[in-house]
């Protein structure tokens, strides 16, 4: 049972799913959508970004916060990236393949496209886009999906360019890799129709399935990201970004509800205690001249100690808002946006070499009473001031409600502060790329991919695969390979759908687990193996040995590997001779038993050829020979 009654709390959640598309080229240039090893980078450059000002003299609040510190962004380029990724050349026209895939997806979500797609620039100044903005376009809206837990509106589908991958952060310098920048993405946003953590997961799974149904999306870690918008009736909308695993979605929703409930409880109690946040910033550097605290000493070197006074907050700063995260952690998150390492608060002191006496002296100096909490930051003057101001702001928000903000998903299901929710203020037209007309005729020509769920059902009926195997192969990344192979062997007596499916989703993963380099296997290898089985040249029992051998010499033709392994040593003539001999030898027995002699004699044949020749072939040969003998006798 869950801790909370989500219906009563008025939980509303929506998902925003970002999925990389597997197009040949990037969204606005002709570079391949190839992820590289950063060691292969052949060029590096760096930039600074600044928030641009709007006509109203305003800057986007998220952008302003991020440019508080002057960060240096280093970019690694490759022989598979170009001047467009470097923000040194205007973008090309939008990639048509990516547009087609996106429209196919929009059909599966019952969405309706716009008539003319306008490409926008969305200001992003964290360095992840060399230009300082992400190109994005609203393509379709007003769709829906139905899952067992209910109806969920599909509000928008946008086509976007993927951001650069962060490699490393050293002080105020961030290193990004440009291979990922510009890979096409679809961003799919649901309506806030999700009412429970379980439904959130269900919707995410369904959307993921639909995306994979296209066969045109990237797979693997980091190719799909979920953001979740969560609010409860008395709380506020919070966007949690970067959930990499489906398994975490339920936990994230549950823990955000917990956070909002606990913060609201705290607010009520604090207001009852007449808690109050002093706006004044205190310089406490002088009080710690003789401190032994190494962390403080380190911070004071070329710096100052600034303090804030939170009246009535004693005991609250150390209180948990999520498992393992306290109100103090929320304060600390904000302080870090100013570039400091963290903060100290009286609920955790004395500690870190800071003595009881020093704490008391600090409290006395700023006139803090028993029920007050004091927050301290030790850093260079400018950073310390920005940090303590950020803490004061957050503390004030505790008394007013839940702040609307963008948070980052943490691995265990918690989240930490990232930045304020960006407004619509950060969008303006990308004048370098012309709008794209989506004519009705073009839209109608876009094929709707078959859903994986439906495909699995079809495999069960068409190929007589068992449901488990059908599902496995339908969701497997080897689905296209399966479909190519099945073309030739769907009616084949010796090969058949089950053998192909078992090989791809059973045997191959098993070989991978035992350390065989199965990635070396290409379609031609599988085709060669199944052709040999179909022709009766090898037994299906030999697949494992043959595939393993092929991973080691992928360039040798399959028949050659078969003969090298001695797998084809048994040519049909030799087997026939053996069977003829056997029939001659056991003539009495056959005459006695008639066709029923097949069973016992088959045992003797199998003894000779088990694992080397397919049983079906042997049985067929033996049957023919016995029948021939009986009819001649």
């Amino acid at each position, binding site marked *: 049972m869950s801790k909370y009654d989500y219906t009563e709390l008025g939980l509303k959640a929506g998902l925003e799913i970002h999925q990389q598309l597997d197009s040949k080229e990037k969204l606005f240039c002709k570079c391949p959508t190839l992820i590289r090893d950063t060691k292969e980078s052949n060029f590096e450059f760096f930039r600074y970004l600044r928030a641009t000002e709007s*006509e109203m003299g305003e800057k986007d609040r998220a952008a302003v916060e991020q440019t508080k510190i002057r960060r240096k962004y280093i970019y690694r380029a490759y022989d598979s990236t170009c001047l467009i990724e470097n923000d040194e050349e205007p973008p090309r026209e939008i990639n048509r393949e990516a547009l087609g895939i996106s429209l196919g997806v929009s059909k599966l979500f019952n969405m309706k496209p716009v008539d*003319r797609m306008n490409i926008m620039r969305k200001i992003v100044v964290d360095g992840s886009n060399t230009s300082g903005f992400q190109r994005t376009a609203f393509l379709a809206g007003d769709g829906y999906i139905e899952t067992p837990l209910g109806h969920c509106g599909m509000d928008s589908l946008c086509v976007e360019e993927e951001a650069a991958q962060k490699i490393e952060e050293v002080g105020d310098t961030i290193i990004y890799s440009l291979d990922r920048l510009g890979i096409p993405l679809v961003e799919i946003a649901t309506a806030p129709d999700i009412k429970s953590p379980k439904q959130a997961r269900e919707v995410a799974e369904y959307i993921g399935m639909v995306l994979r149904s296209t066969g045109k999306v990237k797979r693997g870690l980091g190719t799909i990201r979920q953001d979740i918008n969560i609010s409860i009736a008395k709380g506020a909308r919070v966007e949690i970004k970067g959930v990499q695993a489906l398994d975490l979605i339920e936990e994230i929703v549950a823990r955000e509800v917990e956070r909002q409930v606990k913060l609201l409880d705290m607010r009520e109690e604090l207001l009852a205690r007449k808690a109050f946040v002093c706006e004044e910033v205190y310089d406490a550097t002088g009080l710690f001249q003789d401190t032994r605290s190494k962390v403080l000493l380190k911070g004071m070197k070329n710096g100052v100690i600034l303090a804030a006074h939170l009246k009535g907050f004693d005991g609250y700063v150390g209180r948990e808002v999520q498992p393992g995260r306290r109100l103090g952690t929320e304060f600390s998150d904000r302080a870090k946006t100013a570039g400091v390492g963290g903060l100290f608060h009286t609920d955790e002191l004395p500690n870190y070499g800071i003595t009881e006496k020093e704490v008391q002296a600090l409290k006395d100096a700023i006139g803090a009473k028993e029920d007050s909490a004091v927050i301290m930051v030790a850093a260079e003057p400018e950073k310390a001031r920005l940090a303590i101001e950020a803490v004061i702001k957050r503390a004030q928000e505790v008394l007013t409600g839940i702040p609307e903000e963008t948070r980052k998903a943490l691995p265990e299901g918690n989240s930490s502060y990232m930045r304020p929710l960006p*407004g619509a*203020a950060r*969008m303006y037209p990308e004048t370098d790329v012309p709008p794209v007309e989506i004519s009705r005729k073009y839209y109608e020509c876009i094929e709707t991919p078959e859903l994986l769920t439906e495909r699995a059902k079809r495999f069960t009926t068409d190929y007589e695969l068992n449901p488990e195997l059908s599902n496995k192969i339908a969701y497997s990344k080897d689905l296209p390979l399966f479909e190519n192979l099945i073309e030739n062997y769907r009616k084949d007596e010796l090969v058949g759908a089950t053998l192909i499916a078992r090989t791809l989703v059973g045997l191959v993963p098993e070989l991978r687990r035992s350390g065989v380099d199965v990635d070396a296997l290409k379609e031609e290898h599988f085709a060669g193996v199944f052709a040999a089985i179909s022709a009766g040249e090898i037994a299906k029992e030999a697949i494992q040995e043959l595939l393993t051998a092929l991973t080691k010499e992928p360039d040798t033709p399959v028949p050659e590997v078969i003969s090298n392994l001695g797998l084809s040593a048994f040519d049909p003539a030799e087997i026939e001779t053996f069977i003829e001999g056997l029939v001659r030898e056991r003539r009495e027995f056959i005459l006695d038993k008639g066709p029923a002699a097949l069973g016992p004699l088959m045992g003797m044949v199998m003894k000779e050829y088990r694992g080397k020749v397919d049983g079906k072939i042997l049985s067929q040969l033996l049957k023919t020979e016995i029948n021939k003998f009986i009819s001649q006798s």
Partner: protein
Amino acid sequence: MEIKQGDWVRVEKDGTVYEGKVMPSAEGYVTLKMNSGYNAGFLEAEVTITLLESKPEEPEVAEGAAEKRALKVSSELPAKRSEKLPKVAILSTGGTIASKIDYRTGAVSSQFTADDILSAIPELREIADFKGRVISSILSENMESSSWENLAKAVVEEIEAGADGIIITHGTDTMMYSAAALSFMIETPVPIVFVGSQRSADRPSSDNAMNAICAALVAISDIAEVSVVMHGTTSDDYCEVHRGTKVRKLHTSRRDAFKSVNSKPLAVVDYDSRKIETLIAHTRRGEVPLKFKPGMETKCALVKFTPGADPAILDYYLEAGYKGIVIEGTGLGHVSTKWIPSIEKATEAGIPVVITSQCLNGRVCDRVYDTGRDMLKAGALEGEDMLPETALVKMMWVLGQTGAFEEAVELLGADLSGEITGCTLQ
């Protein structure tokens, strides 16, 4: 119903409803800016539009906004009009060193006044005391030699009025022509610095801020020459200071498109440390008195020779009354032998012909091969290591100063403003 830009409307298409602000759009479409910030276009013929809220009256909003901005700037950034800071005049000619985005409409507008530039790049206030002046707001490809003369005149006025340095914001396409023109027209005791941006000022990654800051540093420096200050590399590490007669745009889009050709840059400006390092000798502040020498002959042409090109091309200019011709020849400075009689025709008619090279890098030498020797015999002048564009501007200026062929030839062969070096760069 009359729907106009800025109205808040509801658009219904096949049962789907969108709300947003009406934006400028292509014929036949209605484009909305939705609450999400996205724009979306719909075929006008296939939708029902309902007006929800009319656009508020224009003038009120615009004035209010401008006032608000002005107040905000002055309260946030108290103008440090310290007497100690050098005085620099910013003359704008239409380059977008500053631009603003109207987030309600998404339109980007170029900003030309010094106040706009200073509010976009507040660090400039720490470097100098700026005064702004708008000269023109035309695209740089639409500039003409009369624009250069207007610009030069304004520069001279500002120097006379006590400016310690001049910054000229300029579109990058023809910046090198304007810089060359001012190099010939003005003998200057203070730095005259051209600056622009290759990446539009409306993007957070624009090169405008760094270029402007480095230009300001050069404007208050000791480098009393006409120069172009732009990115030195693709990184935001340093700017190069190019001599106005030796600079060429060598890339269509990169930040470091401007390079000195047949010369080192005058200096480099480190963005982080704000230090200037000079690389070659230059005229120092106050070394020469201010002298303004306007006058440009517009009937001059730059003709590129290509294999098989008809000599009638050259004849055309002679018949059309051109007064001077610069030829961009191949290699060391060659044209086909068929062109030589036309060259001779020109020089005999008192029309100077200067030969430059398509190679850009290196010096013209017409004494090595027969063709070259014949060209010289026909009266052609070697343009030495001059850039073809610089040679053209020089021709225009020289012929603006004198009508005498002999004198013109002498001036064309002399180094007037660093356009010809004695020793070719290694």
